[in-house]
Protein backbone atom coordinates (compact mmCIF):
# COMPACT_ATOMS: atom_id res chain seq x y z
CA UNK A 1 0.00 0.00 0.00
CA UNK A 2 1.54 3.30 -1.10
CA UNK A 3 -0.63 5.22 1.33
CA UNK A 4 1.52 3.87 4.17
CA UNK A 5 4.44 5.85 2.78
CA UNK A 6 2.96 9.25 3.61
CA UNK A 7 1.76 9.75 7.16
CA UNK A 8 0.88 12.23 9.83
CA UNK A 9 1.30 11.21 13.44
CA UNK A 10 0.71 13.29 16.52
CA UNK A 11 -1.82 14.80 18.88
CA UNK A 12 -3.97 17.90 18.70
CA UNK A 13 -6.75 19.77 20.47
CA UNK A 14 -9.52 17.57 19.00
CA UNK A 15 -8.81 14.55 21.18
CA UNK A 16 -6.15 15.71 23.59
CA UNK A 17 -7.01 17.70 26.71
CA UNK A 18 -4.91 20.76 27.55
CA UNK A 19 -3.16 19.02 30.46
CA UNK A 20 -1.96 16.23 28.17
CA UNK A 21 -1.01 18.67 25.40
CA UNK A 22 1.22 20.44 27.90
CA UNK A 23 3.11 17.20 28.50
CA UNK A 24 3.39 16.47 24.79
CA UNK A 25 4.50 19.95 23.80
CA UNK A 26 8.12 20.10 22.70
CA UNK A 27 10.47 22.84 23.82
CA UNK A 28 12.85 24.21 21.19
CA UNK A 29 15.71 22.11 22.57
CA UNK A 30 13.58 18.96 22.79
CA UNK A 31 12.37 19.48 19.22
CA UNK A 32 15.95 19.84 17.99
CA UNK A 33 17.05 16.72 19.85
CA UNK A 34 14.14 14.73 18.52
CA UNK A 35 14.74 15.96 14.97
CA UNK A 36 18.35 14.85 15.24
CA UNK A 37 17.16 11.39 16.33
CA UNK A 38 14.61 11.17 13.51
CA UNK A 39 17.24 11.87 10.86
CA UNK A 40 18.91 8.62 11.95
CA UNK A 41 15.66 6.65 11.95
CA UNK A 42 15.58 3.66 9.65
CA UNK A 43 13.20 4.00 6.69
CA UNK A 44 12.22 7.61 7.32
CA UNK A 45 13.10 9.65 4.22
CA UNK A 46 11.54 13.04 4.89
CA UNK A 47 9.83 14.66 7.84
CA UNK A 48 8.52 17.96 9.22
CA UNK A 49 7.52 18.65 12.80
CA UNK A 50 4.64 21.02 13.46
CA UNK A 51 4.76 22.01 17.12
CA UNK A 52 2.22 24.63 18.31
CA UNK A 53 0.25 25.15 21.51
CA UNK A 54 -2.63 23.12 20.07
CA UNK A 55 -0.82 20.40 18.15
CA UNK A 56 2.32 18.29 17.86
CA UNK A 57 2.28 16.62 14.45
CA UNK A 58 4.91 14.78 12.46
CA UNK A 59 4.49 14.71 8.70
CA UNK A 60 6.64 11.96 7.25
CA UNK A 61 7.56 10.12 4.09
CA UNK A 62 8.74 6.58 4.74
CA UNK A 63 9.97 3.77 2.59
CA UNK A 64 9.39 1.36 5.43
CA UNK A 65 5.83 0.89 6.81
CA UNK A 66 7.25 0.57 10.33
CA UNK A 67 8.90 4.01 10.24
CA UNK A 68 5.82 5.75 11.68
CA UNK A 69 5.91 3.42 14.67
CA UNK A 70 9.55 4.25 15.21
CA UNK A 71 8.74 7.96 15.13
CA UNK A 72 6.08 7.39 17.76
CA UNK A 73 8.48 5.42 19.94
CA UNK A 74 11.15 8.12 19.68
CA UNK A 75 8.62 10.85 20.54
CA UNK A 76 7.13 8.99 23.50
CA UNK A 77 10.57 8.22 24.81
CA UNK A 78 11.67 11.84 24.48
CA UNK A 79 8.56 13.18 26.24
CA UNK A 80 8.39 10.28 28.71
CA UNK A 81 4.85 9.44 27.71
CA UNK A 82 3.42 5.95 27.90
CA UNK A 83 2.96 4.77 24.26
CA UNK A 84 -0.32 3.05 25.19
CA UNK A 85 -1.65 6.32 26.61
CA UNK A 86 -0.45 8.19 23.53
CA UNK A 87 -2.23 5.76 21.22
CA UNK A 88 -5.53 6.60 22.94
CA UNK A 89 -5.37 10.24 21.88
CA UNK A 90 -3.10 10.18 18.87
CA UNK A 91 -3.82 11.37 15.36
CA UNK A 92 -2.65 8.75 12.89
CA UNK A 93 -3.54 9.31 9.24
CA UNK A 94 -2.07 7.85 6.07
CA UNK A 95 -2.02 8.61 2.37
CA UNK A 96 -4.69 10.92 0.95
CA UNK A 97 -6.22 11.45 4.41
CA UNK A 98 -2.90 12.75 5.71
CA UNK A 99 -2.56 15.11 2.74
CA UNK A 100 -6.10 16.39 3.29
CA UNK A 101 -5.36 16.92 6.98
CA UNK A 102 -2.31 19.08 6.21
CA UNK A 103 -4.32 21.20 3.79
CA UNK A 104 -7.04 21.71 6.39
CA UNK A 105 -4.50 22.59 9.08
CA UNK A 106 -2.76 25.15 6.85
CA UNK A 107 -6.12 26.69 5.88
CA UNK A 108 -7.04 27.11 9.54
CA UNK A 109 -10.18 24.99 9.37
CA UNK A 110 -8.77 22.36 11.72
CA UNK A 111 -7.91 25.02 14.33
CA UNK A 112 -9.64 25.46 17.65
CA UNK A 113 -10.60 28.96 16.50
CA UNK A 114 -11.88 28.13 13.03
CA UNK A 115 -10.44 30.27 10.27
CA UNK A 116 -7.57 31.73 12.32
CA UNK A 117 -4.61 32.61 10.17
CA UNK A 118 -1.78 32.30 12.68
CA UNK A 119 -1.53 28.56 11.98
CA UNK A 120 -0.64 29.30 8.36
CA UNK A 121 2.50 31.10 9.53
CA UNK A 122 3.27 28.32 11.99
CA UNK A 123 3.04 25.66 9.27
CA UNK A 124 5.24 27.80 7.02
CA UNK A 125 7.81 28.21 9.79
CA UNK A 126 7.79 24.47 10.54
CA UNK A 127 8.31 23.66 6.88
CA UNK A 128 11.02 26.31 6.45
CA UNK A 129 12.88 24.97 9.50
CA UNK A 130 12.71 21.37 8.21
CA UNK A 131 13.74 22.41 4.72
CA UNK A 132 16.72 24.43 5.94
CA UNK A 133 17.97 21.42 7.91
CA UNK A 134 17.55 19.11 4.94
CA UNK A 135 14.72 17.11 6.50
CA UNK A 136 12.36 17.53 3.56
CA UNK A 137 12.60 16.10 0.06
CA UNK A 138 10.66 16.13 -3.19
CA UNK A 139 7.45 14.72 -1.66
CA UNK A 140 7.14 16.99 1.37
CA UNK A 141 8.33 19.99 -0.62
CA UNK A 142 5.51 19.50 -3.09
CA UNK A 143 2.89 18.68 -0.48
CA UNK A 144 3.69 21.70 1.68
CA UNK A 145 3.90 24.11 -1.26
CA UNK A 146 0.53 22.88 -2.48
CA UNK A 147 -0.88 23.12 1.03
CA UNK A 148 0.09 26.81 1.17
CA UNK A 149 -1.50 27.45 -2.22
CA UNK A 150 -4.68 25.66 -1.16
CA UNK A 151 -4.86 27.61 2.11
CA UNK A 152 -4.54 30.91 0.26
CA UNK A 153 -7.16 29.82 -2.26
CA UNK A 154 -9.65 28.92 0.48
CA UNK A 155 -9.02 32.16 2.34
CA UNK A 156 -9.57 34.18 -0.82
CA UNK A 157 -12.60 32.35 -2.14
CA UNK A 158 -14.58 31.69 1.03
CA UNK A 159 -15.56 33.74 4.08
CA UNK A 160 -13.70 31.42 6.46
CA UNK A 161 -11.42 34.17 7.79
CA UNK A 162 -13.99 36.96 7.73
CA UNK A 163 -15.13 38.61 10.95
CA UNK A 164 -13.14 38.43 14.15
CA UNK A 165 -13.94 35.77 16.73
CA UNK A 166 -12.12 37.10 19.80
CA UNK A 167 -13.50 39.95 21.92
CA UNK A 168 -10.32 42.01 21.59
CA UNK A 169 -10.20 41.71 17.80
CA UNK A 170 -13.93 42.40 17.45
CA UNK A 171 -13.34 45.66 19.36
CA UNK A 172 -10.49 46.58 17.01
CA UNK A 173 -12.64 45.77 13.97
CA UNK A 174 -15.38 48.04 15.29
CA UNK A 175 -12.87 50.85 15.77
CA UNK A 176 -11.85 50.34 12.15
CA UNK A 177 -15.52 50.54 11.12
CA UNK A 178 -15.71 53.94 12.78
CA UNK A 179 -12.29 55.48 12.11
CA UNK A 180 -11.00 53.57 9.08
CA UNK A 181 -7.23 53.82 9.26
CA UNK A 182 -6.29 53.40 12.93
CA UNK A 183 -2.84 54.96 12.64
CA UNK A 184 -4.09 58.34 13.79
CA UNK A 185 -6.43 57.11 16.52
CA UNK A 186 -5.61 57.69 20.18
CA UNK A 187 -6.49 54.89 22.56
CA UNK A 188 -7.07 55.24 26.29
CA UNK A 189 -7.02 52.06 28.36
CA UNK A 190 -8.74 52.38 31.73
CA UNK A 191 -7.70 49.49 33.95
CA UNK A 192 -4.55 47.40 33.79
CA UNK A 193 -6.08 43.92 33.93
CA UNK A 194 -5.67 41.00 31.58
CA UNK A 195 -8.57 41.67 29.18
CA UNK A 196 -7.66 45.35 28.88
CA UNK A 197 -4.06 44.43 28.12
CA UNK A 198 -5.13 41.92 25.46
CA UNK A 199 -7.37 44.52 23.82
CA UNK A 200 -4.61 47.13 23.93
CA UNK A 201 -2.23 44.66 22.30
CA UNK A 202 -4.82 43.91 19.61
CA UNK A 203 -5.02 47.64 18.84
CA UNK A 204 -1.24 47.89 18.71
CA UNK A 205 -1.03 44.91 16.37
CA UNK A 206 -3.27 46.86 13.97
CA UNK A 207 -1.01 49.92 14.10
CA UNK A 208 -3.21 52.10 16.32
CA UNK A 209 -1.77 55.59 16.72
CA UNK A 210 -1.01 55.96 20.41
CA UNK A 211 -1.90 54.24 23.66
CA UNK A 212 -2.29 55.70 27.14
CA UNK A 213 -2.90 53.56 30.22
CA UNK A 214 -4.71 54.76 33.35
CA UNK A 215 -5.34 52.59 36.35
CA UNK A 216 -6.56 53.19 39.87
CA UNK A 217 -3.08 52.10 40.94
CA UNK A 218 -0.74 54.43 39.09
CA UNK A 219 2.30 52.18 39.53
CA UNK A 220 0.40 49.35 37.83
CA UNK A 221 -0.51 51.70 34.97
CA UNK A 222 3.16 52.67 34.66
CA UNK A 223 4.20 49.03 34.65
CA UNK A 224 1.76 48.09 31.87
CA UNK A 225 2.50 51.27 29.90
CA UNK A 226 6.21 50.42 29.97
CA UNK A 227 5.53 46.87 28.83
CA UNK A 228 3.34 48.12 25.97
CA UNK A 229 5.59 51.06 25.03
CA UNK A 230 2.70 53.37 25.90
CA UNK A 231 2.27 56.34 28.22
CA UNK A 232 0.57 56.39 31.61
CA UNK A 233 -1.92 58.86 33.01
CA UNK A 234 -3.27 59.38 36.53
CA UNK A 235 -6.70 57.79 36.78
CA UNK A 236 -8.22 60.96 38.25
CA UNK A 237 -7.52 62.87 35.03
CA UNK A 238 -9.70 60.57 32.91
CA UNK A 239 -12.74 62.86 32.71
CA UNK A 240 -10.78 66.01 32.02
CA UNK A 241 -8.72 64.36 29.29
CA UNK A 242 -11.38 62.11 27.76
CA UNK A 243 -11.75 64.40 24.75
CA UNK A 244 -8.13 63.71 23.76
CA UNK A 245 -8.97 60.10 22.88
CA UNK A 246 -10.90 58.45 20.07
CA UNK A 247 -11.22 55.00 21.61
CA UNK A 248 -11.63 54.38 25.33
CA UNK A 249 -11.23 50.78 26.49
CA UNK A 250 -12.76 50.46 29.95
CA UNK A 251 -11.66 47.35 31.81
CA UNK A 252 -11.41 48.24 35.47
CA UNK A 253 -12.71 46.23 38.40
CA UNK A 254 -14.25 49.35 39.92
CA UNK A 255 -17.57 48.71 41.65
CA UNK A 256 -19.23 51.79 40.14
CA UNK A 257 -19.33 53.88 36.98
CA UNK A 258 -15.95 55.10 35.74
CA UNK A 259 -17.09 57.06 32.67
CA UNK A 260 -20.32 58.96 33.18
CA UNK A 261 -22.70 60.16 30.48
CA UNK A 262 -21.86 63.74 31.40
CA UNK A 263 -18.14 63.10 30.99
CA UNK A 264 -18.72 61.53 27.57
CA UNK A 265 -20.99 64.45 26.60
CA UNK A 266 -18.38 67.00 27.65
CA UNK A 267 -15.72 65.10 25.70
CA UNK A 268 -17.72 64.86 22.47
CA UNK A 269 -18.62 68.56 22.68
CA UNK A 270 -14.92 69.41 22.65
CA UNK A 271 -14.29 67.35 19.49
CA UNK A 272 -17.67 67.11 17.78
CA UNK A 273 -16.39 66.10 14.35
CA UNK A 274 -14.60 62.98 15.59
CA UNK A 275 -16.64 60.08 16.98
CA UNK A 276 -15.93 58.69 20.43
CA UNK A 277 -15.84 54.91 20.72
CA UNK A 278 -16.37 53.54 24.23
CA UNK A 279 -15.56 49.86 24.75
CA UNK A 280 -16.81 48.62 28.10
CA UNK A 281 -15.21 45.28 28.94
CA UNK A 282 -15.82 45.54 32.68
CA UNK A 283 -18.20 43.69 34.97
CA UNK A 284 -19.86 45.56 36.62
CA UNK A 285 -19.94 47.99 33.71
CA UNK A 286 -17.63 51.00 33.75
CA UNK A 287 -19.58 53.25 31.37
CA UNK A 288 -22.96 54.74 32.17
CA UNK A 289 -25.43 53.21 29.69
CA UNK A 290 -26.93 56.63 28.83
CA UNK A 291 -23.71 57.56 27.00
CA UNK A 292 -24.90 55.42 24.10
CA UNK A 293 -27.65 57.97 23.31
CA UNK A 294 -25.17 60.77 22.61
CA UNK A 295 -24.65 61.77 19.00
CA UNK A 296 -21.40 60.46 17.54
CA UNK A 297 -20.72 58.34 20.64
CA UNK A 298 -20.68 54.57 20.16
CA UNK A 299 -20.83 52.34 23.23
CA UNK A 300 -20.26 48.58 23.12
CA UNK A 301 -20.17 46.40 26.21
CA UNK A 302 -18.93 42.87 26.79
CA UNK A 303 -22.25 41.28 25.75
CA UNK A 304 -22.36 43.26 22.50
CA UNK A 305 -18.84 42.20 21.58
CA UNK A 306 -19.43 38.58 22.57
CA UNK A 307 -22.57 38.51 20.42
CA UNK A 308 -20.67 39.79 17.37
CA UNK A 309 -17.85 37.28 18.00
CA UNK A 310 -20.42 34.49 18.22
CA UNK A 311 -22.12 35.58 14.99
CA UNK A 312 -18.75 35.63 13.23
CA UNK A 313 -17.91 32.20 14.60
CA UNK A 314 -21.24 30.84 13.35
CA UNK A 315 -20.63 32.41 9.93
CA UNK A 316 -17.23 30.76 9.74
CA UNK A 317 -18.67 27.40 10.72
CA UNK A 318 -21.24 27.77 7.96
CA UNK A 319 -18.36 28.01 5.49
CA UNK A 320 -16.67 24.83 6.73
CA UNK A 321 -18.38 22.40 4.35
CA UNK A 322 -17.49 24.56 1.36
CA UNK A 323 -13.85 24.80 2.50
CA UNK A 324 -13.59 21.07 3.14
CA UNK A 325 -14.95 20.28 -0.32
CA UNK A 326 -12.45 22.65 -1.96
CA UNK A 327 -9.55 21.23 0.01
CA UNK A 328 -10.60 17.60 -0.55
CA UNK A 329 -10.59 18.16 -4.28
CA UNK A 330 -7.08 19.62 -4.16
CA UNK A 331 -5.86 16.94 -1.74
CA UNK A 332 -7.07 14.15 -4.04
CA UNK A 333 -5.35 15.72 -7.04
CA UNK A 334 -2.17 16.14 -5.03
CA UNK A 335 -2.30 12.57 -3.79
CA UNK A 336 -2.66 11.28 -7.36
CA UNK A 337 0.47 13.24 -8.23
CA UNK A 338 2.66 12.02 -5.35
CA UNK A 339 1.44 8.43 -5.17
CA UNK A 340 3.64 7.15 -8.07
CA UNK A 341 6.66 8.79 -6.44
CA UNK A 342 5.88 7.00 -3.17
CA UNK A 343 5.47 3.69 -5.04
CA UNK A 344 8.88 4.22 -6.59
CA UNK A 345 10.37 4.97 -3.18
CA UNK A 346 8.90 1.79 -1.75
CA UNK A 347 10.07 -0.30 -4.69
CA UNK A 348 13.62 1.03 -4.29
CA UNK A 349 13.52 0.20 -0.59
CA UNK A 350 12.36 -3.36 -1.21
CA UNK A 351 14.78 -3.77 -4.12
Amino acid sequence: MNSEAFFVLGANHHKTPLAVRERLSLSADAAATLAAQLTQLQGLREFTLLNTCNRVEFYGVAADPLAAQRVQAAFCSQQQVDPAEFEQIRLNLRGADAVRHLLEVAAGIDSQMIGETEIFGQVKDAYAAAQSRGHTGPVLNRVFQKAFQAAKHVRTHTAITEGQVSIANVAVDLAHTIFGDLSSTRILLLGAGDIGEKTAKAFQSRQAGSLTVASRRFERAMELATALHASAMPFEQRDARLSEYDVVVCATSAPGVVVTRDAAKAAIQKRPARPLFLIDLALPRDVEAGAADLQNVFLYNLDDLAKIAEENRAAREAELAKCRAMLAERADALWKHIEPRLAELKANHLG
Partner: protein
Amino acid sequence: MFAGLTDRTWLWFAAGFYLAGLLLGTLSLLRGQRQSNTRINVIIALGYLCQLIGLYARGRVVGGCPLGNTFEIFQFTAWSATTLYLVVGVTFRLSLLGYFTSCLAAVLTLVSLAIPAWDLTRRAKIFGGNPWIELHASLALFSYGVFALLALTALMLVLRHYSLKKKHLSGWFSFLPPIMDLDHISVRLLVTGVVMMTASLIGGTIYWARDPASVNSTKLLMTVAIWLAYAIALTLRLKGHLLAKRFAWTCLALFGAALLSLGPVDASRHSPALPAPDHVVPR
Protein backbone atom coordinates in the same frame (compact mmCIF):
# COMPACT_ATOMS: atom_id res chain seq x y z
CA MET B 1 -26.92 59.78 -34.74
CA PHE B 2 -23.62 58.22 -33.85
CA ALA B 3 -22.36 55.00 -35.45
CA GLY B 4 -25.80 54.61 -36.99
CA LEU B 5 -27.63 54.69 -33.68
CA THR B 6 -29.86 57.46 -32.33
CA ASP B 7 -28.93 59.36 -29.18
CA ARG B 8 -31.77 57.69 -27.26
CA THR B 9 -30.51 54.24 -28.27
CA TRP B 10 -27.10 55.04 -26.82
CA LEU B 11 -28.77 56.36 -23.68
CA TRP B 12 -30.80 53.14 -23.41
CA PHE B 13 -27.53 51.18 -23.60
CA ALA B 14 -26.13 53.35 -20.82
CA ALA B 15 -29.22 52.73 -18.69
CA GLY B 16 -28.82 49.00 -19.38
CA PHE B 17 -25.26 49.00 -18.05
CA TYR B 18 -26.24 50.97 -14.95
CA LEU B 19 -29.14 48.58 -14.39
CA ALA B 20 -26.75 45.62 -14.78
CA GLY B 21 -24.52 47.19 -12.09
CA LEU B 22 -27.56 47.57 -9.84
CA LEU B 23 -28.74 43.98 -10.36
CA LEU B 24 -25.33 42.33 -10.05
CA GLY B 25 -24.56 44.42 -6.96
CA THR B 26 -27.88 43.51 -5.36
CA LEU B 27 -27.26 39.85 -6.13
CA SER B 28 -23.82 40.00 -4.50
CA LEU B 29 -25.26 41.68 -1.41
CA LEU B 30 -28.08 39.15 -1.13
CA ARG B 31 -25.50 36.37 -1.31
CA GLY B 32 -23.45 38.14 1.37
CA GLN B 33 -20.48 38.48 -0.97
CA ARG B 34 -18.10 41.40 -1.13
CA GLN B 35 -18.50 43.22 -4.44
CA SER B 36 -15.72 43.28 -6.96
CA ASN B 37 -14.64 46.92 -7.37
CA THR B 38 -13.16 46.15 -10.77
CA ARG B 39 -16.38 44.62 -12.07
CA ILE B 40 -18.63 47.47 -10.94
CA ASN B 41 -16.13 50.07 -12.19
CA VAL B 42 -16.01 48.44 -15.64
CA ILE B 43 -19.82 48.29 -15.82
CA ILE B 44 -20.17 51.93 -14.78
CA ALA B 45 -17.42 52.98 -17.20
CA LEU B 46 -19.21 51.23 -20.08
CA GLY B 47 -22.49 52.91 -19.12
CA TYR B 48 -20.68 56.22 -18.85
CA LEU B 49 -19.16 55.81 -22.31
CA CYS B 50 -22.55 55.03 -23.88
CA GLN B 51 -24.11 57.99 -22.07
CA LEU B 52 -21.29 60.27 -23.21
CA ILE B 53 -21.88 59.22 -26.82
CA GLY B 54 -25.65 59.63 -26.43
CA LEU B 55 -25.31 63.11 -24.93
CA TYR B 56 -22.73 64.06 -27.56
CA ALA B 57 -25.10 62.98 -30.34
CA ARG B 58 -27.93 64.92 -28.71
CA GLY B 59 -25.65 67.93 -28.26
CA ARG B 60 -24.90 67.93 -31.98
CA VAL B 61 -28.61 67.87 -32.80
CA VAL B 62 -29.55 70.72 -30.44
CA GLY B 63 -26.40 72.70 -31.17
CA GLY B 64 -25.04 72.92 -27.64
CA CYS B 65 -24.94 71.31 -24.22
CA PRO B 66 -28.11 69.16 -24.05
CA LEU B 67 -29.96 70.83 -21.18
CA GLY B 68 -33.09 71.82 -23.03
CA ASN B 69 -35.74 69.62 -21.40
CA THR B 70 -36.34 67.51 -18.28
CA PHE B 71 -35.11 64.35 -19.98
CA GLU B 72 -31.80 65.98 -20.90
CA ILE B 73 -31.41 67.51 -17.42
CA PHE B 74 -31.90 64.11 -15.74
CA GLN B 75 -29.48 62.48 -18.16
CA PHE B 76 -26.89 65.21 -17.62
CA THR B 77 -27.23 64.98 -13.83
CA ALA B 78 -26.73 61.21 -13.93
CA TRP B 79 -23.74 61.66 -16.25
CA SER B 80 -22.22 64.27 -13.91
CA ALA B 81 -22.62 62.01 -10.87
CA THR B 82 -21.03 59.13 -12.78
CA THR B 83 -18.14 61.34 -13.92
CA LEU B 84 -17.49 62.30 -10.32
CA TYR B 85 -17.74 58.68 -9.20
CA LEU B 86 -15.19 57.59 -11.78
CA VAL B 87 -12.77 60.11 -10.23
CA VAL B 88 -13.74 59.92 -6.55
CA GLY B 89 -14.74 56.27 -6.30
CA VAL B 90 -11.67 54.95 -8.07
CA THR B 91 -9.36 57.27 -6.09
CA PHE B 92 -10.82 56.65 -2.64
CA ARG B 93 -11.98 53.07 -3.27
CA LEU B 94 -15.04 53.46 -1.07
CA SER B 95 -16.72 50.09 -0.79
CA LEU B 96 -20.33 50.05 -2.10
CA LEU B 97 -20.14 53.57 -3.57
CA GLY B 98 -20.02 52.05 -7.06
CA TYR B 99 -23.13 50.04 -6.32
CA PHE B 100 -25.01 53.08 -5.03
CA THR B 101 -23.84 55.15 -8.02
CA SER B 102 -25.12 52.54 -10.44
CA CYS B 103 -28.45 52.52 -8.56
CA LEU B 104 -28.79 56.30 -8.81
CA ALA B 105 -27.69 56.44 -12.44
CA ALA B 106 -30.05 53.59 -13.35
CA VAL B 107 -33.00 55.31 -11.67
CA LEU B 108 -32.32 58.74 -13.19
CA THR B 109 -31.69 57.42 -16.71
CA LEU B 110 -34.47 54.84 -16.76
CA VAL B 111 -37.08 57.23 -15.34
CA SER B 112 -36.15 59.90 -17.89
CA LEU B 113 -36.26 57.37 -20.74
CA ALA B 114 -39.54 55.87 -19.55
CA ILE B 115 -41.42 59.19 -19.63
CA PRO B 116 -41.62 60.20 -23.30
CA ALA B 117 -43.36 63.48 -22.42
CA TRP B 118 -40.10 64.74 -20.89
CA ASP B 119 -38.41 64.51 -24.27
CA LEU B 120 -41.21 65.58 -26.59
CA THR B 121 -39.88 69.05 -27.13
CA ARG B 122 -36.24 69.48 -27.95
CA ARG B 123 -35.06 73.03 -27.91
CA ALA B 124 -32.04 73.90 -29.99
CA LYS B 125 -29.49 76.63 -29.32
CA ILE B 126 -31.08 77.56 -25.99
CA PHE B 127 -27.93 79.43 -25.03
CA GLY B 128 -28.14 81.67 -28.05
CA GLY B 129 -24.67 80.65 -29.16
CA ASN B 130 -23.13 82.24 -26.05
CA PRO B 131 -20.52 79.79 -24.68
CA TRP B 132 -20.42 81.56 -21.28
CA ILE B 133 -24.11 80.94 -20.68
CA GLU B 134 -23.62 77.38 -21.79
CA LEU B 135 -20.75 77.04 -19.30
CA HIS B 136 -22.90 78.60 -16.57
CA ALA B 137 -25.71 76.10 -17.22
CA SER B 138 -23.47 73.06 -17.49
CA LEU B 139 -21.58 74.02 -14.33
CA ALA B 140 -24.88 74.40 -12.47
CA LEU B 141 -26.06 71.00 -13.65
CA PHE B 142 -22.68 69.44 -12.95
CA SER B 143 -22.88 70.71 -9.37
CA TYR B 144 -26.22 68.87 -9.15
CA GLY B 145 -24.33 65.75 -10.18
CA VAL B 146 -21.86 66.39 -7.36
CA PHE B 147 -24.76 66.80 -4.94
CA ALA B 148 -26.21 63.53 -6.25
CA LEU B 149 -22.99 61.72 -5.36
CA LEU B 150 -22.98 63.56 -2.02
CA ALA B 151 -26.50 62.24 -1.40
CA LEU B 152 -25.17 58.72 -1.95
CA THR B 153 -22.28 59.09 0.48
CA ALA B 154 -24.71 60.74 2.93
CA LEU B 155 -27.08 57.79 2.58
CA MET B 156 -24.18 55.42 3.27
CA LEU B 157 -23.26 57.55 6.31
CA VAL B 158 -26.83 57.30 7.64
CA LEU B 159 -26.79 53.52 7.15
CA ARG B 160 -23.36 53.20 8.79
CA HIS B 161 -24.52 55.24 11.81
CA TYR B 162 -27.67 53.16 12.05
CA SER B 163 -25.74 49.88 11.89
CA LEU B 164 -23.28 50.98 14.59
CA LYS B 165 -25.88 52.45 16.93
CA LYS B 166 -28.25 49.50 16.53
CA LYS B 167 -25.36 47.02 16.53
CA HIS B 168 -26.39 45.45 13.21
CA LEU B 169 -23.00 44.83 11.72
CA SER B 170 -23.34 41.59 9.81
CA GLY B 171 -24.70 41.00 6.32
CA TRP B 172 -24.35 43.78 3.80
CA PHE B 173 -23.83 46.38 6.55
CA SER B 174 -20.38 44.89 6.90
CA PHE B 175 -19.49 46.14 3.41
CA LEU B 176 -20.17 49.81 4.21
CA PRO B 177 -17.08 52.02 4.49
CA PRO B 178 -15.94 53.48 7.85
CA ILE B 179 -17.77 56.53 9.21
CA MET B 180 -14.76 58.83 9.09
CA ASP B 181 -14.01 57.97 5.45
CA LEU B 182 -17.62 58.67 4.49
CA ASP B 183 -17.62 61.90 6.46
CA HIS B 184 -14.40 63.13 4.82
CA ILE B 185 -15.55 62.33 1.32
CA SER B 186 -18.97 63.92 1.97
CA VAL B 187 -17.39 67.18 3.14
CA ARG B 188 -15.12 67.24 0.08
CA LEU B 189 -18.06 66.66 -2.23
CA LEU B 190 -20.07 69.39 -0.51
CA VAL B 191 -17.18 71.84 -0.90
CA THR B 192 -16.79 70.87 -4.58
CA GLY B 193 -20.53 71.20 -5.26
CA VAL B 194 -20.82 74.58 -3.55
CA VAL B 195 -17.73 75.92 -5.33
CA MET B 196 -19.04 74.79 -8.73
CA MET B 197 -22.50 76.17 -8.10
CA THR B 198 -21.03 79.44 -6.85
CA ALA B 199 -18.95 79.75 -10.02
CA SER B 200 -22.04 79.00 -12.08
CA LEU B 201 -24.10 81.60 -10.20
CA ILE B 202 -21.40 84.24 -10.60
CA GLY B 203 -21.42 83.61 -14.35
CA GLY B 204 -25.21 83.73 -14.38
CA THR B 205 -25.28 86.96 -12.36
CA ILE B 206 -23.04 88.74 -14.85
CA TYR B 207 -25.37 87.71 -17.66
CA TRP B 208 -28.48 88.59 -15.63
CA ALA B 209 -27.09 92.03 -14.70
CA ARG B 210 -26.73 92.83 -18.39
CA ASP B 211 -30.21 91.65 -19.29
CA PRO B 212 -32.47 91.11 -16.20
CA ALA B 213 -35.56 90.33 -18.32
CA SER B 214 -33.92 87.29 -19.86
CA VAL B 215 -33.91 85.31 -16.59
CA ASN B 216 -37.16 84.10 -15.14
CA SER B 217 -37.60 85.03 -11.46
CA THR B 218 -38.80 81.50 -10.48
CA LYS B 219 -35.62 79.99 -11.88
CA LEU B 220 -33.52 82.66 -10.20
CA LEU B 221 -35.17 82.22 -6.79
CA MET B 222 -35.08 78.41 -6.93
CA THR B 223 -31.44 78.25 -7.94
CA VAL B 224 -30.30 80.83 -5.39
CA ALA B 225 -32.33 79.07 -2.67
CA ILE B 226 -30.67 75.72 -3.42
CA TRP B 227 -27.22 77.30 -3.55
CA LEU B 228 -27.87 79.17 -0.28
CA ALA B 229 -29.11 76.03 1.46
CA TYR B 230 -26.01 74.06 0.45
CA ALA B 231 -23.74 76.98 1.39
CA ILE B 232 -25.35 77.22 4.83
CA ALA B 233 -25.01 73.46 5.31
CA LEU B 234 -21.33 73.68 4.40
CA THR B 235 -20.74 76.60 6.78
CA LEU B 236 -22.49 74.79 9.63
CA ARG B 237 -20.51 71.62 8.93
CA LEU B 238 -17.18 73.41 8.84
CA LYS B 239 -18.01 75.26 12.06
CA GLY B 240 -18.91 71.96 13.74
CA HIS B 241 -22.61 72.69 14.19
CA LEU B 242 -23.94 70.16 11.71
CA LEU B 243 -22.36 66.77 12.20
CA ALA B 244 -22.68 63.05 11.80
CA LYS B 245 -26.20 61.80 11.18
CA ARG B 246 -27.76 65.27 11.06
CA PHE B 247 -25.26 66.34 8.43
CA ALA B 248 -26.04 63.25 6.38
CA TRP B 249 -29.80 63.73 6.64
CA THR B 250 -29.42 67.39 5.66
CA CYS B 251 -27.46 66.42 2.52
CA LEU B 252 -30.16 63.90 1.59
CA ALA B 253 -32.98 66.40 2.16
CA LEU B 254 -31.16 69.09 0.17
CA PHE B 255 -30.65 66.77 -2.77
CA GLY B 256 -34.35 65.91 -2.69
CA ALA B 257 -35.11 69.64 -2.78
CA ALA B 258 -32.59 70.17 -5.58
CA LEU B 259 -34.22 67.43 -7.67
CA LEU B 260 -37.68 68.89 -7.03
CA SER B 261 -36.46 72.32 -8.07
CA LEU B 262 -35.43 71.02 -11.50
CA GLY B 263 -39.05 70.81 -12.66
CA PRO B 264 -40.00 74.43 -11.88
CA VAL B 265 -36.63 75.70 -13.14
CA ASP B 266 -37.07 73.90 -16.44
CA ALA B 267 -40.74 74.92 -16.71
CA SER B 268 -39.86 78.56 -16.08
CA ARG B 269 -37.93 78.57 -19.32
CA HIS B 270 -41.17 77.83 -21.18
CA SER B 271 -42.68 80.97 -19.78
CA PRO B 272 -44.37 83.10 -22.43
CA ALA B 273 -42.36 86.07 -21.14
CA LEU B 274 -39.29 84.48 -22.66
CA PRO B 275 -38.56 84.52 -26.36
CA ALA B 276 -39.86 81.38 -28.00
CA PRO B 277 -37.03 78.86 -28.36
CA ASP B 278 -36.25 77.02 -31.52
CA HIS B 279 -37.91 73.63 -31.61
CA VAL B 280 -36.44 70.39 -32.79
CA VAL B 281 -38.81 67.71 -33.92
CA PRO B 282 -38.27 64.59 -31.81
CA ARG B 283 -37.28 61.43 -33.55
